């Protein structure tokens, strides 16, 4: 069996005195859609942000497609942070979609997607334009090509955010609570896009509070609490028949009816 696409071993991270990740081991195979769930403060967002080195981890390793993300060994086999160029090249292969979209407000929807294509992948303008247009059509925003982010609804902005990330053809896509900032009626349109990406075999790691989403789209659910992975398995096992006490408590808090339903 080959190595997992995303291979996390012994990952530790502290913010000052607080140890947020206390040794995470997690392997994610190509094509898997993994939902990371857990109470706030459990470290799931930090874990996600370590994978593209937006957060610098302290110990352990993260390999994406066999390559260590944030560090390299120098001639004396000492660990040192990667240089800016290499780090950027690695990040270009790891897509990320943010809770608050973070579209570039001075650029149109199309330009938001084209920026990475031209400046990072070095594609000619015309080709980048075609790819970006294609993705906007794909997420149902063909008529919003020239709109600035401020002219779009939250759901539309987030769909541009997804298009911006996947247009780079990443090996893995990180989704950080991408529907948490949306009005409830806009959640569906965003999840539909993610669902269609999942069907096409996009590898995704999804931090989410939407259990329905974890169940429908994900083929694996990882429950984290206090910086550790406590439960890891298929959605039906993890969400419907939780044996772990803390997971039960978490699911009950999320949905008070959970405790009442028969399992």
């Amino acid at each position, binding site marked *: 069996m080959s190595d997992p696409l995303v291979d996390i071993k012994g990952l530790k991270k502290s913010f000052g005195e607080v140890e947020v990740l206390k040794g995470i081991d997690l392997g994610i195979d190509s094509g898997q859609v993994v939902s990371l769930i857990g109470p706030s403060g459990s470290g799931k967002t930090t874990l996600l942000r370590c994978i593209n080195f*937006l957060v610098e981890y302290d110990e352990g390793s993260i390999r994406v497609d066999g390559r260590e993300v944030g560090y390299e060994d120098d001639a004396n086999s000492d660990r040192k942070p990667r240089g800016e160029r290499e780090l*950027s090249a690695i*990040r270009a292969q*790891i897509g990320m979609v*943010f809770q608050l979209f973070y579209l570039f407000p*001075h650029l149109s929807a199309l330009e938001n997607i084209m*920026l990475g294509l031209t400046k*990072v992948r070095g594609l000619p303008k015309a080709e980048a334009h075609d790819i970006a247009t294609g993705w906007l059509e794909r997420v149902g925003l063909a008529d919003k090509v020239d709109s600035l982010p*401020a002219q779009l609804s939250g759901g539309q902005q987030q769909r541009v955010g997804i298009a911006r990330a996947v247009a780079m053809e990443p090996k893995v896509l990180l989704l950080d609570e991408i529907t948490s900032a949306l009005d409830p009626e806009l959640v569906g349109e965003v999840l539909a896009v993610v669902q269609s990406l999942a069907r096409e075999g996009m590898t995704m790691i999804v931090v989410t509070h939407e259990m329905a989403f974890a169940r429908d789209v994900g083929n694996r659910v990882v429950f984290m609490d206090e910086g550790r992975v406590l439960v890891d398995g298929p959605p039906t096992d993890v969400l419907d028949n939780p044996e772990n006490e803390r997971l039960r408590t978490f699911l009950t808090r999320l949905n008070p009816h959970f405790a009442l339903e028969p399992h």
Partner: protein
Amino acid sequence: MKAAFESLPFLVDGLLVTLQITAIVVLISLVIGVAMGVALTYGSAWIRWPVRIYSDFIRGIPVLVLIFFAYYGLPAMGLNLDSFTAAVVALTAFKISHVIETTRGAIQSIHHGQMEAAKAIGLPFWQRLFSVIFPQAVRRFLPPWINTVADAAKGSALVSLIGVVDLMLAMQKVIGRTFEPMPIYIAGAIIYFLINYSLSTTSRRMESRFSYIRE
């Protein structure tokens, strides 16, 4: 009154010197100040500290002291500057500190998520700055920066004290000959006002030009 009008060409010569000093000071301080402001915002501690100390120190000194130091103090250290150069050096050193702070403020006003999103698509540092951060920060940078330009134009009057014949000293020389201070001072005030009024008009126009960027 007639004398005042006859002295106008002389005042215009002074005005040109004032504009020349202002332009040189503004341009050099813009380039160096923005570079140091970026260093202060993103640099490692070894770069940040010297910039921080420079900025705080210079801003804590009256410009006039800086001008006197450049003209009377530096020769003692073996550096002889003519009055024009000394004036430009002192005013530039002063303006740089303001541009540093304006730059830092403008950059920090941009949500950190913009930098993260730019990192996430794989843009290297300088691309993040030029394609994502600067285009947004320029709107926050312009209003305070144009204030400092106006400040530089007005502050340049101090160089008359080390004998640079700018608009201010030209006025005083004319008054010394005509003994008619009022008309000359009024003419001078109007000229200074026109410079700064055109600057603040430009500022407003530029602000509205960049105001399409909303968060």
